[in-house]
C-alpha cells in the first residue's frame, strides 16, 4: 500500500516536472519571438482583400500603387506606369515579388486578381470602369470603358489589392504579397499573422502579429491600459486622460481625411429653404465642438475636404452667430408662436435629427445643436438609431437632418465623394440633393484629366456646396490611436490604409 502511494507521488512529481519544463521551453520560445497586438474598431467578417479592407491594413496584401504621408501616389507592386492614351494605362510589375506560397508575381497573376475583383465586388467594378486587361511578362495594360482620369487614384483602394486567385480559402487565408501571412482567422474576432520570410521589401521586424476587434471604445481603451493590445485604433477623446498620464503609453492624434457633417433631407419643404439651412449652419459652434466635444482632437471644417488638399475650400471657418440665424429665419417668414417656437403659415419649425452611437461624438453634436436651436425657437427631436445607413435610405420620411461621417477624399482626390454625395442617385446621397449646376460641374470633373483643371473644378463644386449649404460640415476628426511605448518605428497614417508594415518594431 505504502509502495503504491510512493509511486503515485513520484508519478505526480514527474508529471509536474515535465510540464514545467515544457512550459518553460515554450515560454522561452515565445519570448524570443517578437509579436505585436493590434486592436481595431470595425470587425472583419471576411479576410478576402477584394471585399474587406483588413487585407492591406494587416499587411497581407498590397496594391499596385499606394498613397504616401503627403497623400501623393507612389509605386508599390507596380514600379512604374504610364498613360498611353485617354483610356489606356500601362504598369510595370516589380521584379522579385513573390506570393506567400513562394510563386512569383507577374502580370498574368495581377490580371487574374483584377478579373476576380471586378467579378466579386460590384462597387469596385463600377469604380474602376475596366474594359480589358492585357498581360505580357511583367507588363500589364488596362483599358477603361471611358476616359477616366481618376483610374490611377482608384487603384489605391485596398480592395484593388493583388492576391493569388487559385485557392479556395480566400476569405480565411488569402495569399498575398505583403510582409505578413495569415496563420488563422476567426470572423469578427481575431487574425493571427506570421511574418513572411521572403517579403520583397525586407522581412518584417516583428515575427508575429495579432489583430483583434472590438466596437466598444471604452473596452478598447481599457485593453490598451491592461496591456492586452499594443496599438488601439479610434479611441474616444474622453478615454485619453489615463492613457496620456501613463508612462508606458502614448496617444497619436492625426488629422484624418474624414468629415463629420449634417445631411439635410431635401424632400422636407422647410429644409428646401436655403435660409433655414444657413440658419442651422450658423448655430453650429465649431470651435466649442472641437475644444469640448472632441477634446481638441479635430479641426474645424470649412467644407467637405481636409484643408491640406489643394482642392479644399479657401474660406474661413463659419463662426456661430445665433443673431444672424434669427434674422435669416425672420427673412424667410418665420415668426415665434405663443409657445416660443418659430412657425410659418401655422407650421412650426420642428426638425427630427437622426444620429448613431457608432461614432460617440455625433450624438453629442446633435444634442449641442438641439440646445442652440431651442434658444432661437427651432424644436429639434433627436432619434438615435443602430444602423444609420439603413435608416437613412429605408425611412426617408422619418428624418430631416442626420449627423453623418465619411471619408471625403480617401485616395487624395475629391471625385469619389462629390460623385457619391451630390449626384442624384449617388450612394451617399440619401437626402436626395439635386442641384443641376453642381451635377454639371461634377460630370465635367469626371472627364477632366489635367490636374490643375481638376483642382479648379473640385474647388468650384466645394464653393457651390458651401454657398447653398447642401451639407453642414462640422469638423475633420483626428484619428486617435493609443500606442504602447514598446512599439517603435510606427505612426498611424491619415489614410488608415497601411497599419501593419515591415518597418514596425517592438522592444
Amino acid at each position, binding site marked *: 500500500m505504502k509502495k503504491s502511494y510512493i509511486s503515485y507521488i513520484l508519478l505526480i512529481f514527474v508529471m509536474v516536472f515535465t510540464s514545467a519544463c515544457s512550459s518553460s521551453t515554450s515560454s522561452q520560445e515565445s519570448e524570443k519571438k517578437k509579436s505585436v497586438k493590434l486592436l481595431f474598431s470595425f470587425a472583419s467578417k471576411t479576410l478576402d482583400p477584394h471585399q474587406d479592407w483588413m487585407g492591406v491594413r494587416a499587411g497581407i496584401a498590397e496594391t499596385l500603387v499606394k498613397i504616401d504621408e503627403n497623400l501623393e501616389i507612389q509605386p508599390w507592386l507596380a514600379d512604374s506606369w504610364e498613360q498611353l492614351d485617354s483610356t489606356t494605362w500601362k504598369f510595370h510589375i516589380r521584379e522579385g515579388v513573390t506570393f506567400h506560397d513562394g510563386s512569383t508575381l507577374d502580370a498574368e497573376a495581377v490580371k487574374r486578381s483584377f478579373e476576380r475583383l471586378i467579378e466579386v465586388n460590384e462597387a469596385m467594378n463600377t469604380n474602376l470602369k475596366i474594359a480589358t486587361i492585357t498581360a505580357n511578362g511583367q507588363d500589364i495594360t488596362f483599358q477603361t470603358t471611358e476616359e477616366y482620369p481618376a483610374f490611377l487614384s482608384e487603384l489605391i483602394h485596398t480592395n484593388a489589392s493583388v492576391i493569388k486567385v487559385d485557392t479556395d480559402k480566400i476569405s480565411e487565408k488569402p495569399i498575398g504579397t505583403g510582409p505578413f501571412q495569415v496563420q488563422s482567422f476567426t470572423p469578427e474576432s481575431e487574425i493571427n499573422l506570421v511574418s513572411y520570410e521572403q517579403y520583397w521589401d525586407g522581412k518584417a521586424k516583428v515575427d508575429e502579429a495579432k489583430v483583434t476587434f472590438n466596437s466598444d471604445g471604452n473596452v478598447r481603451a481599457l485593453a490598451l491600459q491592461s496591456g492586452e493590445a499594443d496599438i488601439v485604433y479610434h479611441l*474616444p477623446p*474622453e478615454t485619453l486622460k489615463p492613457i496620456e498620464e501613463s508612462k508606458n503609453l502614448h496617444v497619436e492624434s492625426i488629422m484624418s481625411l474624414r468629415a463629420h457633417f449634417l445631411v439635410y433631407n431635401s424632400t422636407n419643404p422647410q429644409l428646401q429653404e436655403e435660409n433655414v439651412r444657413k440658419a442651422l449652419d450658423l448655430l453650429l459652434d465649431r470651435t466649442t465642438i472641437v475644444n469640448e466635444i472632441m477634446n481638441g482632437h479635430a479641426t474645424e471644417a470649412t467644407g467637405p475636404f481636409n484643408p491640406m488638399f489643394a482642392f479644399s475650400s479657401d474660406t474661413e471657418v463659419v463662426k456661430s452667430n445665433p443673431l444672424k440665424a434669427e434674422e435669416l429665419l425672420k427673412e424667410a417668414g418665420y415668426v415665434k408662436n405663443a409657445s416660443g417656437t418659430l412657425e410659418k403659415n401655422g407650421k412650426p419649425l420642428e426638425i427630427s435629427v437622426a444620429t448613431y452611437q457608432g461614432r460617440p461624438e455625433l450624438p453629442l453634436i446633435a444634442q449641442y445643436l438641439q440646445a442652440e436651436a431651442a434658444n432661437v425657437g427651432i424644436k429639434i427631436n433627436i432619434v438615435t438609431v443602430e444602423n444609420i445607413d439603413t435608416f437613412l435610405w429605408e425611412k426617408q420620411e422619418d428624418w430631416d437632418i442626420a449627423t453623418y461621417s465619411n471619408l471625403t477624399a480617401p485616395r487624395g482626390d475629391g471625385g469619389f465623394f462629390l460623385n457619391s454625395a451630390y449626384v442624384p442617385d449617388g450612394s451617399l446621397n440619401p437626402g436626395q440633393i439635386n442641384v443641376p449646376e453642381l451635377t454639371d460641374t461634377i460630370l465635367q470633373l469626371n472627364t477632366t484629366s489635367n490636374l490643375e483643371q481638376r483642382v479648379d473644378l473640385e474647388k468650384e463644386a466645394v464653393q457651390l456646396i458651401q454657398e447653398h449649404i447642401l451639407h453642414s460640415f462640422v469638423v475633420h476628426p483626428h484619428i486617435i490611436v493609443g500606442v504602447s511605448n514598446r512599439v517603435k518605428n510606427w505612426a498611424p497614417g491619415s489614410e488608415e490604409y497601411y497599419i501593419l508594415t515591415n518597418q514596425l518594431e517592438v522592444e
Partner: protein
Amino acid sequence: MTNKQNLSMLLGIVLASILASIFLLGSTFGTQDPFYINMANRLSSSSAPHWLGTDHMGRDIFARMVYGAKLTIGLGILIILLAMCIGIPIGLLSGYIGGKMDAFFMRVIDGILAFPDFILAIAIAGILGPSLTNIVIAIVLVKWIVYARVIRGLVLEEKQKEFVLASRLSYSSTFHTIRLHIIPQIFSEIVVMAAIDVGKIILLISSFSYIGIGAQAPLPEWGAMLNEGRTFIQVHPSLMVYPGIAILLTVLCCNLLGDGLKGYFQARKRRNLQ
C-alpha cells in the same frame, strides 16, 4: 406577518420616504434646468449651484436626476396600470366564464410566454423604433399576460367558494358577482404583485434606455444617463454612479415594500379566517 416582513416593510417605507423627500425637495426648490447645456462648465465637481456637479454637456446632474425620477418612476407606474387594465379584465373573464373564451386567451398567453419577456420587448421596440412611447407599448404588451394568467388562476380558485356559488344561485349578474365577491378577494394579491413589478419595470425601462432603444437624448431617464456616462467611467465615474445608485435604491425600495405588503395581507387574511 413575520419579523422579516415587518422589517422589509419598515425599511421600504423609510427608503421610500428618503427618496421621495430628496426628489420632492429637488423638484420644488431646485433652480437648475435639467436641459440647459453649458459647454464652458462641463464635468465640474459638486458646488453650491450644482449639488452633484455637471455632466459632459455642462448640465446639472442633480436636476437631471430629479427629472429622471419623475420620468422613470412615473413611467413604471403608468406601465403597471396599463398592463393591469388589459390583464385584469381578461384574467377575470377568462377564469370566471371559462369555456372557449378561456381556451382562446390561454393559448394566446401560452404563445407569448414561450418567448423570454425581455427579448420579446426588445423585438417589439425594435420594430416600432426607438422612443420612450414605444418602450411603454412594448413593455405593456409583454407584461399584461402575467396579470391575466395569475388573476385567472385566483378566480378559478375563488369561484368554487360557497359565497360565489350563492351569489350565482341568486341570479346575480356576472359583473355583479365579480365586482362584489371576487375582486375584493383577489385585490391584495394584485397590489403585492404590482408593487414588486414596479421595480422590475423600472429596471426594464432603464435597460432599454441603456441599450439606446428607450429614452432619446436629451431626456434624463436614468438608464439613458447611465449610457451617456459610460464613456466617462474612468475619468468621471460619478456620471454613472448617481443614476446607478438611484436605480438600485428605487428597485430595492419597491421589492421591500412588495415583500412587506405581502406579509401584511397574509396576516390580515389569517386574522379574518380565525
